[in-house]
């Protein structure tokens, strides 16, 4: 639950006033604000933050795997506002481990394109509505998603015995 202190934050207050179910939680850690957003509403929240709250830049998108906990993945959006002298905001969406998927934000920031491809490639999270969701780092025929915690560091297929 969001503490009363954090509710006074203008961004959180605006989001809560707009849609009380959009935010699941908010955490202030090491001076940085992270908002847990309902994955169904990420597109709506991002558009609002960009258009109304001057978070015009998307710095990056990544994910964190909390295997074997459920919901397993956290998709993290790093937002930035140049207008407000480098104010930053982190949005996080908890996504279930079984056929993970979330809406693509490429319609809001075109720069999200490669970041979402990277998360798709390395975590296996699908982005619905992405224009070209293909592998970006690994070869096209690669099996598995390397940054998942159950993917071994030294690979699946090859051992020195094969050589």
């Amino acid at each position, binding site marked *: 639950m969001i503490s009363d202190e954090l509710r006074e934050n203008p961004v959180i207050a605006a989001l809560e006033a707009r849609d009380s179910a959009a935010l699941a939680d908010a955490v202030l850690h*090491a001076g940085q604000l992270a908002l847990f957003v309902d994955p169904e509403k990420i597109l709506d929240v991002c558009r609002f933050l960009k258009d109304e709250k001057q978070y015009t830049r998307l710095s*990056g998108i990544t994910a964190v795997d909390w295997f074997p906990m459920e919901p397993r993945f956290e998709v993290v959006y790093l937002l930035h506002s*140049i207008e407000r002298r480098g104010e930053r905001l982190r949005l996080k969406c908890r996504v279930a481990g079984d056929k993970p998927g979330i809406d693509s934000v490429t319609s809001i920031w*075109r720069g999200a394109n490669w970041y979402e491809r990277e998360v798709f490639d390395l975590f296996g999270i699908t982005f619905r509505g992405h224009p070209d969701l293909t*592998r970006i780092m*690994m070869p096209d025929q690669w099996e598995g998603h390397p940054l998942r915690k159950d993917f071994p560091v030294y690979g699946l297929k090859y051992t020195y015995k094969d050589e």
Partner: protein
Amino acid sequence: MSEPELPSPAATLEAESPNQQTERRRMILNMGPQHPSTHGVLRVVLELDGETVVSARPDIGFLHTGIEKECEEKTWQQVVTLTDRVDYLANLSNNLCYALAVEKLLNAEDAIPQAVKWMRVLLCELTRINSHCVWLGTHALDIGAMTVFFYCFREREDLLRIFEMFSGQRLMTSYIRPGGLALEPPRGWDKAVRRFIDAFSDKVDEYEDLLDKNPIWLRRTQGVGYVPLEELLDWGATGPMIRAAGIPWDIRKDEPYSDYDKFDFAVPTRTENDVWARYRIRMEEFRQSAKIVKQALDGMPGGPWQADLPRVTLPDREKMKTQMEALIYHFKIVTEGMRVPAGEAYQCIESPRGEIGYYVVSNGGNKPHRVFMRTPSFGNLQSLPVMIEGKLIADTIAAMGSMDFVLGDVDR
């Protein structure tokens, strides 16, 4: 079953020839992954109509080494050596960004001595000069001005000697670590840096003499590679690319870290937003970086070169010979590494190429749970298609050079 009938060669020719007259044929050209001007292993699939680029699709991942995965297997201190290898032309900037992120998680920002902060600033600015030297040399070489390369690498050699003096390594320095510096600065370091920096402003004049009035250079760069500012921001470009489009956005000014707010420097901007403007921005940054280095040299505070955090930094060798605790801490740090409280932090700094950001997640253990590297080259390279589509293929080289990407930084 009868074989499917193949059309005769003559019939194919006849079928194609009217087509050729009505519609010009397009050609698919693979630029790279071994093309010299892609500075690494980047493949750009170009669709050409004569000399004009119709569409471009960068294909990356050839240099993907799984650094982020590797980070999850190393202790917090060992990860420093991996950050060197991300952007190998600005390794100290990467070291610093990671160190600051971990210090944020450790809640140790106030414990960092001032001498460490200033030395970090000095080294990062030398790194910026070093990186811009490589960029200018190779960029000019791509466009056809060969001499600049030798001039720039002359200065780069001096800088690498300075880095070697500090850390024992020319390229993979790993000199900035969580909690301080790896080693005490060597004796006579200030003389070496001062000798370099005093001579450097003349060297920048030399570069400018070679290029600023060179008609070929001007024709190849002015008006080339223009993208509207909104598109650049939308695609995630950072650093000199944005400053060349008129926004004085510099993380050193906007979100000061490591005492940058105590230094006096300007953020150069231009409005032309072309390859030439990006060149001018970096030339100005040479001078501003030199200015910061001079200030750091003149005002370098004395004091310890690492924080007094026994669980994070290695103890003094002399203390280890006399104090039991020091020996225990040394043993613990070396064998199992330090523990970082659970939490997450995002730290960004202004690297020579733009915004480097480290998003570090800890679960309380001695290894990071996740390290995400938001690298400037990755964001900048995304805007390549909008920059070159509809333009001449020769301008592709100039536009790519002006982005100053490092493929290790893109692929990680």
